[in-house]
């Protein structure tokens, strides 16, 4: 049954499966559609199937079953060199025996583009990544960040509509990585290309993407914009994988559409937003972000349930204070406090009351 092509859908995976050994599935029933001009990130731990999915889209791996569509046409049988997809590899894969200029000329030469046009395009691509003066250098003479820019320019020089990036910033140091994130995002916006980006760095995924697909165990666990992903994780895996998280195990005592009362293992009762708990008596993990825990009554709702806590350790991190405390039966309950001028300072051993807004506590499945 062929579904009608949705014009906003540029790339589509339909029931795609992949197995290498005929016994286990690395990708299990992948359904994903990516809009034109979208920046979509595949995020997940290693072995989650994200890179395999990217390689199937690039054409280096074949799908065991299912269909991959590019601009409405199935591309399962199209060899990689005819897909016209730009790709940036993890270690750049710049051809070591060619200069930067020759590297950029390569995709144009195989497309039989004339010399004048070729040179104009190379110059434009190099200027785009601010590497105009480096055309005659060899890749080995460039720093990691410069090689990264050249790899980017090479993937863009033949004007592909779709660019795939396989952990392109993995080998750079933190500062350069953050700078390149910004530049890639900026290029994406100014060129209007569609980008599929693979990373295991959640910070990278959150800062750059329009939408993030969180992969685990061969499946997409959640597909959502960064804000939703962080603030409204759909299951425990996502909550745990994205950002830091306090997990409190308990049993659902009362449940309606918008509110669940959870009895914690310590006997305390807390209020949470139900996400994927189904019935009263279900076991659940309540997830609360460390920065959403309050230690003063001000921001909490009036009938918020408060818990007793004992400060065990205060770690000074510059912009924030990270407090580890004993609370709700956990020795490692973490609270992050903004290092502002009027922040209340805590000392180890101090006993306080903590609480949160019920919508920030999310009752999730148990894994």
């Amino acid at each position, binding site marked *: 049954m062929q579904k009608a092509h949705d014009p906003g859908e540029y790339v589509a995976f339909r029931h795609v499966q992949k197995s290498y050994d005929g016994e286990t599935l690395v990708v299990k029933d992948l359904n994903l559609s990516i809009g034109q001009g979208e920046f979509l990130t595949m995020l997940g731990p290693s072995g989650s199937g994200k890179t395999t999915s990217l390689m199937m889209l*690039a*054409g*280096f791996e074949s799908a065991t079953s299912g269909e991959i569509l590019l601009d409405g046409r199935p591309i399962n049988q199209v*060899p*990689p*060199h*005819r*897909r*016209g*997809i*730009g*790709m940036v*590899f*993890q*270690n750049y*894969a710049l*051809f*070591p*025996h060619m200069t930067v200029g020759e590297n950029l000329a*390569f*995709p144009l030469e*195989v*497309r039989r583009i004339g010399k004048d046009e070729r040179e104009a395009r190379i110059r434009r691509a190099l200027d785009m990544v601010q590497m105009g003066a480096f055309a005659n250098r060899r890749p080995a003479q460039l720093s990691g960040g410069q090689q990264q820019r050249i790899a980017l320019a*090479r*993937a863009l020089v*033949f004007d592909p509509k779709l660019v*795939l990036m396989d952990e392109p910033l993995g080998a750079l140091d933190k500062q350069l990585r953050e700078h390149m994130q910004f530049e890639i995002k900026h290029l994406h916006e100014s060129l209007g290309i569609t980008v599929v980006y693979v990373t295991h760095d959640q910070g990278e995924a959150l800062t750059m993407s329009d939408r993030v697909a969180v992969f685990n165990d061969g499946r997409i666990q959640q597909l959502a914009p960064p804000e939703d992903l962080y603030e409204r994780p759909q299951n425990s895996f996502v909550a745990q994988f994205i950002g830091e998280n306090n997990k409190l195990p308990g049993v659902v005592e009362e449940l309606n559409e918008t509110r669940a009362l959870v009895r914690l293992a310590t006997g305390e009762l807390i209020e949470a937003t139900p996400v994927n708990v189904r019935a009263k008596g279900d076991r659940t993990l309540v997830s609360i972000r460390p920065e959403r825990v309050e230690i003063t009554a001000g921001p909490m709702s009036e009938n918020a349930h408060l818990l007793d806590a004992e400060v065990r350790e205060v770690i000074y991190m510059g912009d924030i204070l990270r407090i580890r405390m004993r609370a709700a039966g956990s020795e490692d309950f973490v609270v992050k406090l903004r290092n502002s001028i009027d922040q209340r300072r805590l000392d180890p051993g101090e006993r306080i009351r903590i609480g949160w807004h019920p919508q920030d506590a999310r009752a999730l499945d148990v894994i």
Partner: protein
Amino acid sequence: MVDLPRIAVQAATAAAGPEIPLKARLARAQARARRRAFLLVLPLLLFILLTFVIPIGQMLQRSIYHDGFSGAAPALVEWFAATPAGTEPDETAFAALASDLLFMKERKLAGEAGTRINYAVPGSRSLFTAAARGADRLTAPYRPALMAEDGKWADPLLWAAMREAASPWTTDFYLSGIDMQRTANGGIERVDEGSRVYLALYAKTFLLSAVITIICLALAFPVAHLLATLPMARANLLMILVLLPFWTSLLVRTTSWIVLLQSQGVINSLLVSAGFIGDDGRLALIYNRTGTIIVMVHILLPFMVLPLYSVMRVIPPVYARAARSLGATSWTTFRRIYLPQTLPGIGAGVLLVFILAVGYYITPALVGGADGQLFSNQIQFHMSKSNWSQAAALAAMLLAGVLLLYWLYDRLVGIDKLKLG
């Protein structure tokens, strides 16, 4: 405030000792380590000196130095020094010859001296030994006395040869190596067409070596690629098969090729029984040029596979993927991305196989017949005849050819691009 930097500088120089400059201090600090490093490499240095530099130097010297005649004929040496080249031998010269013959007889040097002259003028050895035997009976005038013994003593070629041999330093052996000889009046000319052997053989040796190298490359490239792309465990198994010939005696391998290739051998019999050739049309696969090529390719193949493999193993497959993603077909990817990256291995393998082939001797001797002989077989021939100088000159010619190719390779490809493993 203003004085602060100066105080700091003073403190630093005071601590390090102000009178010694930095360079000298650095040299002193490193001298000990350098001495130790030198002592560590000293045994190796001596080994190289003893086993490479001295023998090769001796070989080169032998090719231009032969004192067999000059040491045995002091009077003639004197006469040749006093007269210009091309002078007719007069009575003085024959008197000198007679005294030298006596000298040779006393010291038993006639054979050696005769041999030296024999290289230039065949048949001279017996002339000298016979004359020396009767040297004590010679009386003046010496010219007629010697002429009475053997008319060959008047031969101007003989005298030209003796004049050349009067100096132990000579280019005679190189001249004969390029199929040239001396004329009676001191000039040089090509030898008769029938006896020109070396230059043609030299060219044939390089040509055959080139053919062998190209066949080796064509066979080894896919094998090395397969080895480099297979999983380690299976690659190791295949590698054993590649190396297996190394562990078998060269003679055994060559003999087994004789069994396979001879006219009543396995391959011919198979072809005949399959009806491809008639019984009277059996192919001549051995004891000729074909045999030399087949067997040498087999023997030298591992030397091509190994450097290729070591280079291919470390070429990341991601380059091929990158090329494909940029729009290149698999053929373009191979030609423009993979092949250039294997060049260091190709260069090393080609150079290794070629140099080994140029100097190969056992295999052509065993399976080459008359047609499949190489330059080294001539060297061996001269060595077996104790003509060390001629063997050394031919060996030096071979060395010069190889060095020339090495230089060319360096100019065209660059020796730093070589990767032997």
